[in-house]
């Protein structure tokens, strides 16, 4: 696919370097995980194959460029409303997916574009949803915060509400006996929500196969963790639930911790909680420049020292798992994919007005919907 997209000349360059030149797999030391109510944690090393590395690199780069393109389109007023960007946090979405399968389930809050991609959405349909077109993943009806794919339940706008929903999905997994689990994500801001503690309680009582994941990016909107939370040790906040605090900027750390957590769930032990320490480069949303409550120096420091994509790239290059040219080709391919998607997203027509009232009820007869005045008759279909 890389070769398809980059054209003939580039493919000549790629094929002149034979596959046998690269290291097929390497093992890396990864940061030790802080444990809560656990005797043992995930391993201190992670093995990465060349194939996995290229896949993680490409996916993270796709998320990165997709989010940056969304930033651009938002500033051009082609995307409107809420737009919460994920750049900086890519290792979380990609690492988590590396530790579960697509038959497992996942739900998150509103910073959801990255997850929509890792859960099977395409850049095209994600971008077209942001621009509110009929080719959008929710046909333009949902927008940035309401994107869904198979076994991915959004995209949720109400802070914290997604956590009990995720436990409900986990309950269904246990009820149906299908050995699947549900990953239920929330941020440091949401971590103080009462309904999350209610969910901790019921999930533990009923031993639901749920992995709670707190993506701690240090700020809930403009409020730093020290100013919002009496305890910032989010991995311990589940109290009786075992917890792990993980470097969320390292895709391998995230993957190994997720695998560990998934084993825990699937063995019937009930819930487990992971805190991923991560960082968002953008402000809370496109309305937030993101520098009134934190310094530009801080952002720059994270970018230069802990960028998830750079970290993976350096690992692969220094272990001869890929060449610079190869990674550049992936970058070019990703850029093209994003450009094509943006082109689609800006030219696809808006949803038809006939669609205005559809999708109120599932599997129902069409019915009349009250319009803005009593004389207009609108119809809703399923």
């Amino acid at each position, binding site marked *: 696919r890389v070769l398809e997209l980059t054209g003939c000349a580039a493919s000549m360059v790629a094929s002149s370097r034979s596959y046998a030149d690269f290291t097929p797999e390497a093992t890396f030391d990864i940061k030790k995980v802080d444990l809560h109510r656990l005797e043992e944690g995930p391993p201190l090393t992670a093995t990465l194959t060349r194939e996995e590395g290229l896949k993680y690199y490409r996916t993270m780069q796709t998320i990165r460029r997709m989010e940056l393109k969304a930033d651009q389109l938002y500033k051009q007023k082609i995307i409107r409303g809420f737009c919460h960007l994920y750049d900086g946090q890519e290792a979380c979405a990609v690492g988590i997916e590396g530790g579960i399968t697509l038959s497992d389930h996942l739900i998150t809050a509103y910073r959801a574009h990255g997850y929509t991609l890792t859960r099977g959405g395409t850049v095209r349909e994600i971008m077209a949803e942001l621009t509110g077109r009929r080719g959008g993943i929710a046909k333009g009806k949902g927008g940035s915060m309401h994107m869904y794919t198979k076994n991915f339940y959004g995209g949720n706008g109400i802070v914290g509400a997604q956590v*009990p929903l995720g436990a409900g999905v986990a309950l269904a997994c246990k009820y149906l006996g299908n050995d699947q689990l549900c990953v239920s994500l929330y941020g440091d801001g949401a971590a103080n929500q009462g309904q999350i503690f209610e969910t901790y309680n019921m999930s533990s009582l009923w031993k639901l196969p749920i992995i709670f994941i707190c993506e701690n990016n240090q700020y809930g909107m403009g409020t730093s963790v020290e100013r919002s939370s009496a305890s910032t040790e989010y991995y311990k906040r589940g109290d009786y639930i075992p917890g792990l605090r993980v470097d969320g900027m390292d895709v391998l750390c995230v993957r190994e911790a997720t695998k560990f957590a998934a084993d825990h769930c699937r063995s019937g032990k009930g819930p487990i909680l992971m805190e991923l320490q991560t960082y968002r480069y953008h402000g809370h949303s496109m309305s937030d420049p993101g520098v009134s409550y934190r310094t530009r120096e801080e952002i720059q420091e994270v970018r230069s020292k802990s960028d998830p994509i750079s970290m993976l790239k350096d690992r692969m290059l220094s272990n001869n798992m890929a060449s610079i040219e190869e990674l550049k080709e992936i970058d070019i391919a990703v850029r093209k994919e994003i450009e094509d998607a943006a082109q689609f997203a800006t030219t696809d027509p808006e949803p038809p007005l006939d669609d205005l009232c559809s999708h*109120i009820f599932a599997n129902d007869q069409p019915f009349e919907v009250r319009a803005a005045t009593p004389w207009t008759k609108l119809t809703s279909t399923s």
Partner: protein
Amino acid sequence: VASVWILSECVSLFQVNVRDALNQAMDEELERDERVFLLGEEVAQYDGAYKVSRGLWKKYGDKRIIDTPITEMGFAGIAVGAAFAGLRPICEFMTWNFSMQAIDQVINSAAKTYYMSAGAQPVPIVFRGPNGSSAGVAAQHSQCFAAWYGHCPGLKVVSPWNSEDARGLLKAAIRDDNPVVFLENELMYGVPFDLSEDVMQKDFVIPIGKAKVERRGTHITLVSHSRCVGFCLDAASVLAKEGVECEVVNLRTIRPLDVDTIEASVMKTGHLVTVEGGWPQYGVGAEICARVMEGPAFNYLDAPAVRVTGVDIPMPYAKILEDHSVPQIKDIIFSVKKVLNM
């Protein structure tokens, strides 16, 4: 069971109170579809705070009848998530007053999701429990939520009156692939009604969105829901002695409102009184009047349409005060006579 002769045919009638009608409906639907389950406070080992789920835990066990902690927001969210993932939960609120703790999950997670996902994610869930005034339970336990939930697109809202309603509408709600708010009434739970064999069939369902004319009349239309339907029928009996024949319409469903049945009745009688237990402002009666104003029935009205409602105050405790906070039969009779200029 009683056997009676109707039109020279021997018909079996089953005396079933509303509580048992709900219980039997749930029992039959639990048996019919393995994905159906019940969760809520005290629904299992306590047999239900109002005994509506009596016997179900003994029969179906922990997996399908689940006692929850007192955490409405959490367990309502869990119920909705289970519906996302393909189960068919019945989520009980001990009373609808407690649904306010969880109302975000009912509206934002359940009602709106099918629309936001453009049809990708249906939410086949029933929220049920007793609604409205009871007896001596005071202000925080007596609110009627028909208007609040009836306001929201994406929800179906039903309000049964008698045992036939309770049975048929609960079965329909459980079989519906959409979120249904099911408003019961505690004071009706113990009231017995005669049900025919047809109604007792396992596949007896009442279509959601269809009102029923409980009593035919020609002089005035009374539109009501839940317990007040009984008061309307009582008022109609008294008024019949004075030669006034009331047509009593039992809404059965709050949303979608069966405007056609209401309009047909008003076009026949030319007079309308709505009767509800809830507060007057922005209520069910207000909606009915607005719709009649906007539609063909307006031209048939010989007098303004009027609402009989609960008194616009928080519910007091003392019996004499409580009695004067809810619509009484004499209020309905008085309103009918006023509207008919008698």
